[in-house]
């Protein structure tokens, strides 16, 4: 089978998904319940992507002291809540991870 055709099909599918609602905007009337969901998309999506990175170690839930990424993540959450500064949050998260991994 031709690899290039497969890539093209997958590229078209990926683009189609990303273009779907952007293209449809103005051509349809979204139901009210759907519009009420949208303000939560950034929070729900980014949290759902990040949470497993903190909690899971090789696919297993790990909440104890043996999971430095979890504690470094919590440090980052606190720093982000207090100072709302992206670079500071990232720096403190990495610093916490570094210190925890050494101890």
């Amino acid at each position, binding site marked *: 089978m031709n690899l290039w055709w*497969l890539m093209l099909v997958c590229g078209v599918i990926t683009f189609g998904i990303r273009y779907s609602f952007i*293209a449809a905007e103005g051509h349809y009337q979204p139901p009210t319940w759907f519009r009420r969901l949208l303000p939560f*998309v950034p929070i729900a999506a980014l949290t759902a992507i990040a949470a497993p990175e903190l909690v899971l170690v090789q696919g297993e839930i790990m909440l104890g002291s043996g999971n430095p990424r979890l504690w470094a993540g919590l440090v980052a959450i606190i720093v982000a809540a207090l100072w709302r500064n992206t670079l500071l949050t990232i720096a403190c998260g990495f610093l916490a991870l570094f210190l925890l991994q050494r101890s």
Partner: protein
Amino acid sequence: MNPAQAFSLGLRSVMPMLLGVAPFGVIYGVVALQSGIPPLAAMAMSSIVFAGSAQFLLAQLVGAGAPLLLTAGAVGLVNLRHALYSASVAPVLAHLPRRWKILLAYLLTDEAYAAAIPHLMAVNENSPHAAQAHWILFGSGFGLWAGWQLATLAGVLLGAQLPSNLGLEFALPLTFIAIVVPMIDSRARLMAALVAAAAAVVLAAMPYKLGLFIAVMAGLVAGVAMPRRVN
């Protein structure tokens, strides 16, 4: 804000994420070659498909000789959450000509969306900048695109010679934390985050990132279902 400033804002916002994305791009390049994909095709996939986890899956399925329909279906499932990003940014882009919509849809990755959305949400409320909002998304989208191409190229050319265990991937969840935490200003938003996080962890083992998509949907429903505080 003029277009150059908006573009630069988007570009700067996506920069920290490149730190986390670069190792993935390098590993993708290595995995693609190991799956028997020629270097040129492995590079081309990064611009034709341009979707990190889908490219990993595609490389693996090609290596395993999976049939076209299954592979295409799997790639579609893995990218399903991008439809929500599309719906989320659609109102801001509604006034643009079609060529802009096509360009920004092509660039609409997790990272580009994450970097631009706080600015786009702010734009909605005070309209003076609204006319340039698409430049912010273009800046973050272009920044991620360029970084992804370079990382893939490095993976294809240098491959296993590059260190991939530096822990730089952690920059991604950290940046997402930095973006999401300041957005949580109500009980409904807190509930959306908590439900999405819990569901994503519990469902993480589901194939084709279906658990991630279900977790996002659960978070959306939880946010809407939360009764508004009556003062």
